[in-house]
């Protein structure tokens, strides 16, 4: 058994924070996949559940899906900016491919992504476990709640605004944080995350 040798030793050692090509492309494609999911989610959820609940302080309870890309992207790629970038890509797909909201959905994505990104930054980009995921989901939820109460529901009375933001945080924690973490763990089990630190948890086959 020999010591691992660097295949291309003439390249300067990369700082571990720098994004590799595979990081960029994976974050992009994950974001795009979620964007596609959003379109499917709209078709699935709007007619059945969303309509009665829309424009009420409980609306965010179903909106956790929109926050998933930020958490999943960050947990997979584990680089600074991953949460923000992945959420941005998901919003970009929504924007170009069928959202009636145009740029607005992109702006939503920016704030939601930032909400999660700030949490990971606060954790010095070292924590990528369930706790971090849940906190980041909550962070994205706060961002979503605050942004939407300012833009879409400015006339809401203060207690209702608080309920709205609270619902957003709850859904961020449970759906984006919890479910997101679970998703990444299941993905690791399939072996597709082999190029990432997040994929190293599986036993050798």
């Amino acid at each position, binding site marked *: 058994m020999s010591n691992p040798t660097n295949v291309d030793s003439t390249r300067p050692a990369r700082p571990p924070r720098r994004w590799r*090509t595979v990081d960029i*492309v994976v974050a992009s494609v994950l974001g795009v996949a979620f964007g596609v999911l959003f379109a499917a989610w709209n078709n699935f959820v709007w007619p059945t559940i969303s309509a009665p609940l829309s424009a009420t302080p409980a609306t965010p309870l179903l909106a956790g899906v929109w926050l998933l890309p930020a958490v999943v992207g960050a947990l997979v790629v584990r680089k600074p900016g991953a949460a923000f970038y992945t959420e941005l890509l998901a919003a970009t797909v929504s924007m170009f491919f069928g959202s009636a909201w145009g*740029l607005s959905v992109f702006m939503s994505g920016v704030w939601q992504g930032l909400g999660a990104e700030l949490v990971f930054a606060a954790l010095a980009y070292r924590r990528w476990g369930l706790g971090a995921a849940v906190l980041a989901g909550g962070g994205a939820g706060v961002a979503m709640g605050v942004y939407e109460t300012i833009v879409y529901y*400015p006339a809401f009375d203060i207690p209702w605004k608080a309920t709205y933001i609270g619902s957003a945080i709850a859904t961020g924690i449970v759906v984006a944080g919890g479910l997101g973490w679970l998703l990444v763990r*299941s993905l690791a089990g399939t072996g597709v995350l082999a190029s990432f630190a997040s994929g190293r948890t599986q036993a050798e086959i």
Partner: protein
Amino acid sequence: MSVLAVPAVSDAGAPIARRSPLAKIAAALLPGLALLASIDPVAPAVVLASTLFCVPLCGVTWRALARRAWPLALAVVTLSLGNAVFTGRKGGATLFELGPLVLTTESLGAGGAAGLRVAAIALPGVLAILTIDPVDLADALVQRLRVPARFAYGALAGLRLAPLLAADWQTLGRARRARGLAAGANPVRGVRLFAGKVFALLVGAMRRATRLAAAMEARGFDSGQARTAAREQRFDGGDAALVAASAVVTVAAVGLSIVTGAWNPLLS
């Protein structure tokens, strides 16, 4: 029957459609940002009227706009009602009462203003996107705003896969039906099925992504060499004029609102 809507095509030769994507986005964002500051009916009305005036200049037919934006219209109506019901301002005559939910003339006015505001913030953005080609946007971001090329073109390459992933999504649904799994009327089963499809789509997305990354690297992507541009994106006088016009409209809208006394700051 597609999961993704086909991007609407606008006439690329129209006066506004010809402009740089950055100019179009800036022109769409400016009024939106200003409108955030207050909830009143006047400023949004001015912006909305100007935007509707620009629709033919963007090379978008009214029919295409209606087809694309009807969910927005529906959402604005719902939103207005929601704001009207949950607002704190309950002055004026009571129109409807159900337990804690009260609808009065003043609340309806507040709701309507909120709805109009959302429409005025969103519509310029819709027009902007209808006239922007993602490739042009990526080029403009890299060449004019110095966005790192590897992120912009990495994103573009990912975007190209969107229709393929949408097709995968449909295949996943069919594969499940072929094995006897379908949502039917049971929402719990529907959610489980949806979650299963989400997982499978992400696995497929990861596989495509790793292959795409290898292909991009093989073509010299992110190899440290200075990158040139095959398609030039300019920002010229016409683009500056568009942004300036948008600024003028914004100032006019806010000015008119203040002058007529309708200006109602958000945080008051």
